[in-house]
């Protein structure tokens, strides 16, 4: 920068940060359509703020994706984990942490540092073991500040 030139205004960066913070408080997507728990319902929407993690599930005779809430309720979608990841790409709370998990960063209450990371969530006694694998670890640690 030459002498006499004005410093560029930093306002856009600050506004961007404010916007990001607001996005974090008020995410653009708040609910997600899942298979209704009662057959008289057409559609059921799970509140993403209640979801601890999203994982693949195939132990009930079919491939599905399961949303686990802090109230220990499981909800199911036929979308694959990658498709759900795409839909939640702009959601500031959710991130992919392994081949099998999308986690809600705001619901993590504990983690164990080992080669991977085991994650504990609000309301759930059992952790997800190896919830964060090496591929996603750097990004996870960056976002989980």
């Amino acid at each position, binding site marked *: 920068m030459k002498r006499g030139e004005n410093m560029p205004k930093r306002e856009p960066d600050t506004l961007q940060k404010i916007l990001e913070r607001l996005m974090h408080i008020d995410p653009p997507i708040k609910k997600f359509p899942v298979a209704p728990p009662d057959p*008289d319902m*057409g559609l059921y929407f799970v509140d993403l703020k209640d979801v601890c993690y999203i994982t693949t599930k195939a132990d009930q005779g079919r491939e599905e994706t399961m949303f686990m809430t802090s109230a220990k309720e499981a909800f199911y979608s036929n979308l694959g984990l990658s498709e759900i990841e795409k839909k939640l790409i702009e959601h500031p709370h959710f991130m992919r942490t392994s081949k099998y998990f999308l986690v809600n960063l705001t619901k993590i209450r504990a983690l164990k540092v080992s080669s991977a990371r085991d994650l504990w969530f609000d309301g759930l006694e059992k952790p997800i073991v190896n919830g964060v694998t090496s591929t996603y670890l750097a990004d996870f640690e960056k976002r989980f500040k």
Partner: protein
Amino acid sequence: MTEDLYKRVEKYYLPERTIISQDGEVVRVKDIVFLTIEGKDSVAVSCNNQKYKLVQPLSFYEKEFAGYFLRVHRSFLAAFDRIRVVYERYPEEEEPESVSRNKGGAADECELALRGTETRIPVTNTYSGVLKKALGVSTLHHLVPEHPDDKKLRKLGIIDFAWREFFKLDPKDTAAVKAYADAWRVLTFGKERTLRYFRRLGENQIDKRRLAKNIIWQTWRWIKKGIRKLFDGNIRSFWYEVKNALGGDEILDSDDVGMFYDTLREMIEDERLFRYKDFGFMDMNSPFHGVGKQRPEIILAVEKAGLANMARSLALEAGASHICTRGEPAVLTIEYFTDNLKAAIAGREVTLFVMTDMNPAGVSIRNSLISGIEAQGVKVARVVVLLETKDFSDDVLPGSKAKVVRYEQKGSVITPVPPAKMGQVTKALKWFESIGDPRLKTEAEYPGGKRIVTIWGIDSDTADREIIRKRFLEGLAQSLCFS
């Protein structure tokens, strides 16, 4: 950037804003579940179900709080963040049934359940597009993408109640089975719950046919899973079980028996969801069929009960299989017969020697038998019709023939003589053409160019049995040469 931020902050601030009621009460927007119209007033309904009469029309709040309240009906704005469930909408007043709606298509009327109220908010077609866009869904009736199994059942109007629990259920765990059955047995739902799942569109009535379908489906599923016994009676035993369970609540009554049987038939014979035999129903025709020991793949089939003994003894003589259909073949009988047959023929194709009445009904019985056997996975490679008109000499025929239809003809105009219907006449004429024996058509002339025409058939039990025996054994010998 500043503009984006401002919009964002404004949206974020919307629930914090207040609305003043006609009585001067201050209501926080975040406490309002929905807005509606009562009389001439706009009304805000809060989460404790308190109502506030508002000053402005709904359109004002729709615009002022765009993004927070969403118009879903001419008279309703819903707090978008509170939407929890989308239900089917069942208008109280009778409405024409929408075909597209049944297919999950354009007609997207539904009801919304919102957090903070028991009241369901109606959504009309006019506003459903905006709602779908806001919710990010392509239909309001079912999840997309839908699992193929779910889709198949939905299209059939079947609910697989609590299938996840069912999948995990251990039939040996009697306590778990009882708990599951107590919770999910359709027959014990009671009227209110039954209405919730099986309500007829546009009426506050149970859709009995859909209910019957679901009872049948559940019964089959439970039998297959091994958590209920097979029926030790016939189809009527099933009906009595259903009627006894639902009659008290006046959900089904004696007049529904035909509907119940027809639903069962439709599920088995048209939709091929399962078989009669899966329910353990007794085969009333079991004395009328059997599988041969030496040549099980050769089947001698007769229509008339009077020919059953002849068929049995002839089949026994040849080591062949036999079946007497006693009219149109019952699917249940064919299931039992073909299961026994399959065990004996080990995948081989079969040859069918068939002796039905020589008339359109006989042709129909023959075709039903062939298609019925093939539907059970047995390939019919060759069909030999045992009865021919040449077996009946001119002096024998008058005693063997029976009227099929009678019609009046003037010029080219044909009028059926009651009780015949035009369809029967058409069918009979087509059959007569295929037979090609002029003796089976007689005509009487009347003045004015009018003719009364009678088409005749031949009863199979009037046939000379020795001719039939000879033809069967010759055909059998030919079959042996082929094989």
